């Protein structure tokens, strides 16, 4: 897991509509529409509490959601963060 700190725009910078279990996100700063699957919306929501390292972010997510006995959560979170970073929805300040 990387030591990077991630940031997302505040919730008011997005319009989000849930359809069939995926989220349509209209990102106001860029004017782009994104279609993302869980846990991407949850990651954005957790970053709403403030900038966070992947470790901190995982703690926030585990506090709010039950991930069961999954053992590769850190790697999965890194992969999702990389996707969100590519989409421009999260970045490193």
């Amino acid at each position, binding site marked *: 897991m990387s030591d990077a700190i991630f940031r997302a725009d505040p919730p008011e910078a997005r*319009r989000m*509509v849930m*359809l*069939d279990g*995926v989220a*349509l996100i*209209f990102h*106001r700063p860029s*004017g782009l*529409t994104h*279609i993302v699957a869980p846990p991407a919306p949850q990651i954005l929501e957790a970053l709403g509490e403030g900038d966070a390292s992947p470790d901190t972010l995982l703690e926030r997510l585990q506090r709010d959601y039950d991930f069961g006995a999954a053992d590769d959560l850190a790697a999965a979170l890194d992969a999702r963060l990389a996707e969100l970073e590519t989409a421009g929805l999260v970045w490193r300040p």
Partner: protein
Amino acid sequence: MRHEFRVQVGPAAFRIGSDWRQPLDQMAALYNGYPTPEIPDFTVRLFARRFWRRFLRPSVMIGGDYMLPDAAPLSLAHGMLGAEMGMNLQMALGQRRYLLLHASAVERDGKALLMTGESGAGKSTLSALLGERGWRFMGDEFALVDLENGAIHPFPRLVSLKNEAISLFEDSVDASRLGPLMRDTPKGDIRHLRPPDDAVEKMHEPAHPALLLFPRFGHAPDIREIGQAEVFVRLTQASTNYVMLGEVGFDTLSRLVTTIPSRAVDYPDTESAVDSVERLWAELAA
């Protein structure tokens, strides 16, 4: 421009200027009964590529407020097609008051049926056919979605019948409603059809959408549900101004997708398609 023709189609007012009379006379005959606007929203120009070309083997260039730089010239015999293409182009690139969906629309009992799909899927032919069978024809090319309340505004321009679809209408509608047969255009054989009178009379009456279909011609009959997320993506691709509208486009499209049912409809022939449409309408929208 030496010659000019003006026509109001739904909420859009067009001025078509031309170096030649013929295409405008053909349009005036088919758009007979449509309102003539005083102030045009969009201008389309049909002009000669070179001055002397107006007389020798004329070739028609299409221009207007919005232009495609690589549009190829057409022969004068296809001039009216050029004007119709120019009108579509002005709408596709210049319309900002509505979310534009590349879709056909018909209305019954105050509710609209939308049909969208790839070119050749049959949405245009189907809408024209339904317009002859008890539905109100609202448009074969663009559905204009109201940005405030989601209603569909009619855009009942001439239907451009292509190839096999032409013969479906030649024997069943009054000859005065058909334009000249234009062979071997860039889109194949084309013949324009004037929409029925009620479509013209009610061109300012919107209708709320009640069903969205994705017809596909040339396949065994089949009806499939489509997830809302996929419908949303397909409609962003079917819209010519979704990106330009920004957030209001997002809100308008997501409201449409979440409030009306959608189905994909495969059909081998038009009669089968009409049957499927009537059945789905009775089941999901009536």
